[in-house]
C-alpha cells in the first residue's frame, strides 16, 4: 500500500513577493514583479526587463549567518534557502542545531545552474593566477547540489539529499521525485522545490536565441503576456519555491496543517522525435505525460477544475493549450480554468515549476484562482480551442476548487505533470 502524500509547508522567494503572506496577496491582486534593469541595457541585451526577488541585506541575515554570507555570491542558493527554510518552519518542524540528523527527512531541491556569478568571479581570479584567493566556499556555491547541501546543513536533513536538474521542468520534477520517495516509504518528509540564479550570465544565451521579449522594455509590468496575441517571448526571472511534503500519517501524528494532497503525476520525454527538438516539444509526449499523470492520480480528466499551465508567453502557448485539450478530451466551455503565473513573475526557469506549484497549492487551500494578467487580447488560436471565459482575468474566490493539474515543459523535450487535490479530512 502506497503512503498518501500531503503538503504541510510552503515557502517562496518570487519576483513579485518574498514570503507566503505577501506572495498570496500579490498573486490574488495580479501584482507584477517585472522591472527594468539598466545593467541589461548597458550590456546590449535586447530584453532589458526581468523578474528578480527583492531581498534586502536585513532579510538575507535572517536566513544565512555572517559566516555563510562571507564571500557569498550565489543568489539562487540564497532564494532556495529563504524558500526552503520558510517551508520547513511553516510546517512547524524544529531546527535543532545539535543532536542527531533527522533521518526521516530529506530534500530534492533543483536548480538549472548554481552560483554563476560566483563562477565568473572565480574564473577571473584563476586566470589572474590567484587561485588561492577563491577561499573555502567557491566549490559549495557553484556545485549543482549547492542548494541541497546548504539546506541539509541548516535543517539537519538525514535522508536523501540531492539536486535535480531538468531545465524548466526542474521545480515540478523535484516535487514528483520527493512525492515518490514518501509514497514508497523511504522517507517521511521531503523538502522539495527549485531555485534559479539571475543576471546576465544566466539569461544571455536566451537573449541570443531571441526567445525573450524585447518589445516591452518600456512597460515591464505588461511584458509577460501568456496566451495573448501580443505575446512575443518570455520575460526572464529568478527565485525559488519550496514545499514540505509529508506522509499523511506523519502529518496527522504531528497535527500539522495540511495545505493539500498530491494524488500523482508523471514525467516523460519526447526524445526529440516527431514535432520535438532540443527546444520544441514532441506534442504526443506532452499529451501522454498529462494522460499518465491523470491515470497515476486515479482520477478522471473531467475532475480537473483548473490547469496551472507552463504558458511562457511564446508562440508555443497555443500549442500547449491544444495539447491539454487533446489529452483531457475537453474543449470550449467544457475546458477547465487555465492560468499562468508567469504573467506576474516572468519565467523563473529552474524555479518556475516550484514557484508555480506553491501558487497552485495556496489557491487550493485558500479557495481562489489567481488572475492571469496581460491576456486581455487573447490569441485567436487559443480562442478557437477553449472558451475565453476559462482564462480568469480577475481573481475568482471559490470553495469548489478541488483538483489542479500543474505541468512544466523544458528544453531537451522533457515534460512533468502533477495532480494536486484539496485535502478533505
Amino acid at each position: 500500500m502506497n503512503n498518501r502524500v500531503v503538503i504541510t509547508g510552503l515557502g517562496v522567494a518570487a519576483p513579485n513577493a518574498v514570503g507566503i503572506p505577501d506572495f498570496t496577496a500579490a498573486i490574488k491582486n495580479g501584482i507584477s514583479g517585472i522591472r527594468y534593469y539598466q545593467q541589461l541595457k548597458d550590456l546590449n541585451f535586447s530584453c532589458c526587463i526581468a523578474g528578480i526577488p527583492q531581498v534586502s541585506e536585513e532579510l538575507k541575515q535572517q536566513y544565512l549567518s555572517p559566516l555563510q554570507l562571507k564571500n557569498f555570491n550565489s543568489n539562487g542558493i540564497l532564494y532556495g534557502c529563504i524558500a526552503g527554510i520558510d517551508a520547513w518552519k511553516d510546517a512547524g518542524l524544529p531546527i535543532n542545531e545539535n543532536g542527531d540528523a533527522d533521518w526521516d527527512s530529506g530534500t530534492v531541491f533543483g536548480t538549472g545552474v548554481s552560483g554563476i556569478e560566483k563562477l565568473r568571479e572565480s574564473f577571473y581570479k584563476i586566470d589572474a593566477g590567484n587561485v588561492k584567493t577563491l577561499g573555502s566556499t567557491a566549490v559549495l556555491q557553484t556545485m549543482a547540489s549547492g542548494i541541497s547541501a546548504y539546506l541539509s546543513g541548516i535543517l539537519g536533513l538525514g535522508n536523501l539529499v540531492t539536486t535535480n536538474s531538468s531545465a524548466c521542468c526542474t521545480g515540478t520534477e523535484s516535487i514528483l521525485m520527493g512525492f515518490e520517495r514518501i509514497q514508497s516509504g523511504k522517507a517521511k518528509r521531503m523538502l522539495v522545490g527549485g531555485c534559479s540564479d539571475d543576471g546576465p550570465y544566466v539569461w544571455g544565451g536566451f537573449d541570443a536565441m531571441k526567445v525573450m521579449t524585447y518589445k516591452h522594455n518600456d512597460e515591464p509590468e505588461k511584458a509577460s503576456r501568456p496566451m495573448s496575441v501580443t505575446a512575443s517571448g518570455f520575460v526572464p526571472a529568478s527565485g525559488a519555491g519550496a514545499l514540505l511534503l509529508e506522509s499523511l500519517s506523519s502529518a496527522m501524528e504531528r497535527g500539522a496543517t495540511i495545505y493539500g494532497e498530491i494524488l500523482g503525476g508523471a514525467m516523460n520525454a519526447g526524445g526529440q522525435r516527431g514535432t520535438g527538438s532540443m527546444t520544441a516539444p514532441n506534442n504526443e509526449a506532452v499529451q501522454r505525460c498529462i494522460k499518465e499523470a491523470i491515470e497515476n492520480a486515479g482520477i478522471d480528466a473531467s475532475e480537473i477544475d483548473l490547469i496551472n499551465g507552463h504558458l511562457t508567453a511564446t508562440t508555443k502557448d497555443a500549442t500547449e493549450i491544444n495539447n491539454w485539450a487533446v489529452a483531457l478530451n475537453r474543449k470550449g466551455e467544457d475546458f477547465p480554468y487555465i492560468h499562468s503565473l508567469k504573467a506576474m513573475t516572468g519565467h523563473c526557469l529552474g524555479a518556475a515549476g516550484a514557484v508555480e506549484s506553491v501558487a497552485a497549492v495556496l489557491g487550493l487551500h485558500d479557495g481562489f484562482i489567481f488572475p492571469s494578467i496581460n491576456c486581455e487580447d487573447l490569441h485567436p488560436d487559443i480562442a478557437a480551442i477553449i472558451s475565453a471565459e476559462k482564462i480568469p482575468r480577475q481573481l475568482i474566490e471559490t470553495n469548489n476548487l478541488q483538483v489542479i493539474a500543474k505541468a512544466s515543459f523544458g528544453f531537451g523535450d522533457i515534460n512533468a505533470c502533477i495532480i494536486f487535490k484539496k485535502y478533505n479530512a
Partner: protein
Amino acid sequence: MNTEELIEKLKVIVKPYVKDEEGFKNMTENSDFLNDLKINSANLVDVILDIETEFDIIIDNESMEKMLNVKAAIDIITAKLNEK
C-alpha cells in the same frame, strides 16, 4: 551582387543547418527556411549570425523576425549592403 550570387552564398551558409536535402537541392528565392529546408527554428539565429559574418553587416531584431525565407533574407541583406 545579383540574386543568383546571393542565393549561392546563402546556400553555403545554410547547408550545415538544413534537414531536407531535396529542399536544399531545389533551393530558390521562394524557399522557406523552416518548411522547405526544415531548418530547426532555434537555429535561425545561427544562420543570421553566419550571414552577418559573411556579409559584414548587422541585422537588427525587427529584420531578424522577418528572415524566415530566402526572399526576405536577400531583401534584407541587399538593403543592409546598400546602407554601407
